[in-house]
């Protein structure tokens, strides 16, 4: 239980509850820099390897509290402490998720044997999709651009996540709306080319 009430935090909380539009911006302005600095200091290895996880953890914590200020109980902690715990929790969840994803990737890689070590990801994908050599050659001729081929393989594998396509196109910094629009445009272009070639996707 906090001995000294967090007057500033309580005022901000009240304004958030009252839906004062400037309170959300003030919450972000007040806490984002310190929360980011806190995570960078407490998890320097994450800052080095995957700084996006830190930004996401901070963003989610601030967004959540801005929308649901009642989640913070001023009698239990200061607002700063609550948010620090929240970003720490978000980051740990993200790290656990990343670990699970990597373990799954290693598992898949082991299934395909040691031949995959150091191999070209495009080749690996083609192998997984059981595309024969003649077809591979045709794909290489029809789609000389490597990014196009990778997109094609994702489409062939019935990948539905926009982020996977955006990663191939290097669009990770765009907003979700722009990412979606650009990916859709690229996919439509490839589909049109596939139709012209007389091919079809499964």
């Amino acid at each position: 239980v906090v001995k000294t009430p967090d007057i500033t935090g309580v005022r901000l909380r009240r304004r958030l509850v009252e839906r004062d539009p400037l309170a959300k911006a003030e919450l972000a302005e007040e806490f984002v820099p310190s929360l980011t600095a806190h995570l960078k200091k407490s998890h320097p290895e994450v800052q080095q390897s995957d700084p996006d996880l830190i930004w996401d953890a901070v963003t989610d914590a601030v967004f959540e509290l801005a929308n649901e200020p009642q989640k913070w109980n001023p009698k239990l902690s200061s607002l700063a402490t609550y948010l620090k715990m929240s970003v720490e929790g978000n980051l740990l969840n993200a790290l656990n998720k990343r670990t699970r994803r990597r373990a799954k990737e290693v598992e898949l890689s082991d299934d395909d044997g040691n031949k995959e070590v150091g191999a070209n990801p495009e080749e690996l994908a083609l192998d997984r999709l059981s595309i024969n050599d003649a077809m591979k050659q045709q794909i290489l001729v029809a789609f000389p651009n490597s990014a196009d081929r990778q997109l094609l393989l994702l489409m062939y594998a019935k990948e539905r996540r926009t982020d996977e396509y955006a990663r191939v196109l290097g669009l990770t910094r765009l907003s979700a709306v722009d990412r979606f629009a650009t990916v859709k445009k690229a996919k439509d272009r490839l589909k049109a080319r596939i139709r012209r070639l007389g091919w079809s996707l499964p």
Partner: protein
Amino acid sequence: MSLQRTSVPLEVVSRLGDLARKDPGWLAFWFSVWQKSNSASRVALRRKLSVTERGLRLLLLSGTPRDEHFSKDVGRLALAAGADGDALAALVREARFHWSSKKVPGRHYEAALMAARDVKTVKKTGRAKRRLGKDL
């Protein structure tokens, strides 16, 4: 707390913006609706609001003006961001109109009445009223 004291890093503004664009409780949602319905770029949005990039970022992090304090909220937001208050008010109303008419077919008339009611309660110069009149 002062909005002039610190600056939220672009990485967070961008991520918060992505989340806020899906939530009507944030001004970013209404900006997004307005941009989509007008096929407007971010630059066009800035120009419409006569606001700097820093001011726009602040607005993207802000909540939606409350119906019961609409003019006061818009005035405070515009002052904090250095934006044109009349333009901001008109933009939010226009976006609401587009949104309600798109989401619920046949509600054009109701939305138009709602927006018109807002104008009467806002102590603004004739500029906002004239602009809204054109939009409707």
